[in-house]
């Protein structure tokens, strides 16, 4: 019998659990932490032989996971979300990973297939999307916030990417439409934790342009583009929420000049070998500093000057 416990946090996810639980039935220690569901979640979990721990409802904050890591009885724990599931051969393969794991390895990162609006997305932003989900039960903790990978309890986390050529994947199908996607992203943004200080608008803007640049239009068509815009906008929203949470509240720079950006990113994680287009940029100066990280990894054409942002940065420096 495999030495892996499975930990699932859930609220009102009976349908997801019906799909997930048969795919983790290879484990004899499946724990469902039920945040006071009002649907059939607890019943579905019990019927599948899982142990159910009921707790008061909380927003989807990952720090909650820490409270229940001790529930796992095996030396290794696999954490799954209720909108995810595994392949039919995952149990055997995961058992193989832990049996062969070097003692120096704390955790495995599993790639994830993300299905949105009926399509499995392949762009570099969406795949391989490695998630640190299989780990020695006493080795990790989560910091607060949504969808962060866990960190080590002490020292740094030694993570191995699931070995190829055909690694175990997490299968994730959570959003049936762009509308649902936007809805959930907004709810995560509204319930996330924002540090009281440390607000740097250019960090958010970098992420905005990084997200837009990473949609190379090669993989996921209009859907990919729509989701990229939604995610980029999500960074704007998060920037505002972060700004509001700071004490004292800092100045908010002019966000009003949003140029449109078209970009071609080189092939994501694997590298497609395509040559990036030669960068053509407006001569506004200043913005190159702000987006250096983005420029190093993509080539892109700015179709309107980013003067407002560069002005703000210049004022801030003096």
């Amino acid at each position, binding site marked *: 019998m495999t030495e892996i416990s499975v930990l699932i946090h859930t609220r009102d996810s009976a349908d997801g659990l019906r799909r997930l639980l048969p795919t983790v039935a290879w484990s004899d220690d499946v724990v469902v932490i039920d945040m006071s569901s009002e649907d059939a979640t607890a019943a579905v979990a019990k019927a599948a032989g899982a142990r159910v721990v009921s707790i008061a409802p909380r927003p989807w904050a990952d720090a909650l996971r820490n409270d229940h890591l001790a529930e796992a009885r095996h030396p290794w724990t696999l954490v799954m979300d209720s909108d995810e599931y595994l392949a*039919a051969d995952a149990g055997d393969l995961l058992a193989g990973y832990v049996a062969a794991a070097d003692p120096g390895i704390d955790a495995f990162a599993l790639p994830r297939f993300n299905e949105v609006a009926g399509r499995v997305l392949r762009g570099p932003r969406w795949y391989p999307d490695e998630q640190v989900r299989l780990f020695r039960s006493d080795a990790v903790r989560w910091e607060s916030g949504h969808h962060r990978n866990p960190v080590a309890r002490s020292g740094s986390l030694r993570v191995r990417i699931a070995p190829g050529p055909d690694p175990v994947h997490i299968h994730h199908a959570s959003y049936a439409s762009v509308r649902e996607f936007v809805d959930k992203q907004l709810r995560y943004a509204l319930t996330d934790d924002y540090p009281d200080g440390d607000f740097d608008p250019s960090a958010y803007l970098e992420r905005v342009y990084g997200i837009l640049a990473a949609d190379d239009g090669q993989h996921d068509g209009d859907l990919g583009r729509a989701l990229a815009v939604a995610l980029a906008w999500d960074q704007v929203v998060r920037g505002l929420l972060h700004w509001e949470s700071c004490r004292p509240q800092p100045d908010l720079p002019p966000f009003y000049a949003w140029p449109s950006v078209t970009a071609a990113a080189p092939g994501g994680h694997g590298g497609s070998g395509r040559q990036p287009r030669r960068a053509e940029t407006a001569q506004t100066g200043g913005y190159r500093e702000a987006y250096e990280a983005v420029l190093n990894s993509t080539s892109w054409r700015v179709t309107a000057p980013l003067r407002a942002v560069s002005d703000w940065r210049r004022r801030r420096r003096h």
Partner: protein
Amino acid sequence: MPDPVPLPGSLGIVVPSRGLGALLHHSLLALRMAMRPLDGEVETRVVVVDNASPVPYRLAALAADEVVRLDRHASFAAACNRGAAAADADATLVLNNDVLLDPRALTSLLAHLAAPRVGIVGARLVFPDGTIQHRGVALGPDGPFHPDRGVPSDSVRRSTRTVQAVTGAAMLVRREVLADLGGFDEAYPFGLEDVDLCLHARRRGWVVVCDQAVDSLHFESMTPGRADLDAASRELFRHRWHSACSPDPEEWQ
């Protein structure tokens, strides 16, 4: 009026497949057409075994009842066994994703199971140009081969053949045979697990026949990388069956 042919209570159709989503889609549409005469007569279940396709299949996009997803590529034998277990039917049709069944093919194959000793039924398969791809597998001095391969189907007789083996590209197997033999032998990496199953079945007293009444289309092996795996399978087959089976006499081939 002849007696109606007894049909199995349930029929599972197992389609192991890797990638080639468009081909799979059309193969399943042809399968659905062939299943229509069985409506109300036989309980059917179509199980696609997603054999580590780079982009996973979505059930909603396929004319199937279930997708069994494997993240790691498995041998054809292992994929078939997984599918057969999921289908759990009185008779299982193993079907390749590059076979387009004739609309009459299923009824034609199932009719042969009326004879209780028949354990495995093969299908007659043609290339796009109408020449024979498979009408039974014979054993020659160099091992298994397809007699009449490449010959126009019109010139090959249509009477049912009792054969040593049939191809797994479209192979109907009784539940009892799979149970008796423990399924396909997963030691074969690619190819010859089908012939192996047939030879073992014959050893246990089952009869293997190949239906000749109806031609279904077989594009034959669009899966890349086949040649290397074939060699390992051939070696295993030779090792297993070298002195344990008789070649077909020439007039039977």
